[in-house]
């Protein structure tokens, strides 16, 4: 089993506990003007889990395939992230992540070495993409804990 799966399986639970510790009236707040609100960020993680898996499935099917870039900000507007229910989105994220891990657990080393190409990222193997996804999870957990700090006032 790829060791990054050990990390990826914990993210939904950690995120849910952090969100539950923050009063609902603060879910629309942003830590910076150019960042998602807490609610939008949860929706983004749930929504993009499918995007990430599709890229890896495409690489499995056709090694080196070019995949489309997705404008995260535009997708948030189009899909009305700001009107969604955060707890429903947390559930969606947890379910999709379980599916992602099930899919990844079955891949062989040879399959983990297959790649896709994306604008701005270049050619990336599935194995490298797992490291990127793990980093992406932690980037957003970092964001979530800024909201936690805003509530509790300590670090």
């Amino acid at each position, binding site marked *: 089993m790829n*060791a990054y799966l050990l990390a990826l399986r914990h*993210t939904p639970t*950690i995120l849910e506990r952090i969100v*539950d510790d923050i009063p609902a009236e603060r879910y629309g707040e942003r830590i910076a003007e150019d960042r998602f609100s807490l609610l939008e960020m949860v929706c983004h993680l749930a929504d993009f889990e499918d995007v990430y898996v599709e890229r890896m499935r495409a690489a499995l099917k056709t090694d080196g395939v070019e995949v489309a870039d997705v404008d995260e900000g535009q997708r948030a507007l189009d899909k009305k992230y700001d009107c969604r229910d955060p707890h429903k989105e947390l559930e969606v994220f947890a379910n999709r992540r379980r599916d992602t891990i099930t899919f990844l657990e079955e891949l062989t080393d040879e399959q983990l070495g297959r790649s896709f190409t994306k604008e701005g990222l270049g050619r990336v193997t599935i194995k490298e*993409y797992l*490291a990127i996804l793990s*980093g992406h999870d*932690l980037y957003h957990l*970092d964001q979530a804990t800024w909201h936690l700090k805003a509530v509790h006032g300590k*670090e």
Partner: protein
Amino acid sequence: MTPYALSLRHTSAILGRIVGAIPAERHGEALGENRFTLVEMVAHIADSENVYFERLRGAVERDVPTFDRVDVIARAREGRFTERDIRQELNAFAKRSRATVSFLEALGPEAWAREFVSGIGRTSVERYVAFVSGHDLYHLDQASEYLVR
């Protein structure tokens, strides 16, 4: 640059903010019989960072070195982790983690493939960093459990 160090960049800041949300009187509380208390866990993760760094550097500098298994329970007892100051341990972890990430970010592709032997068997620098990331998340999960119990 390889993406393998990305997952280690944020752990110490995340852990610091979660701990900041937990009342100090709970820092000595264990959430299970065989679990570290919060202060022991923070001291453990700070201590482990030194172990990880030495192994990673050893693998880069020497040919397939072997490292002894670490008894984390004995190390916690001998190092009196229960008596540690949680803020100092968080600061130590942050400093050590930054050093590990700086070291890893300077490595070329051939260095990521270098191997060593430890308690988890023969592994490469790249695979070990993934293991470290899993260990980090395991303990972030543990820390976040205090938010709901």
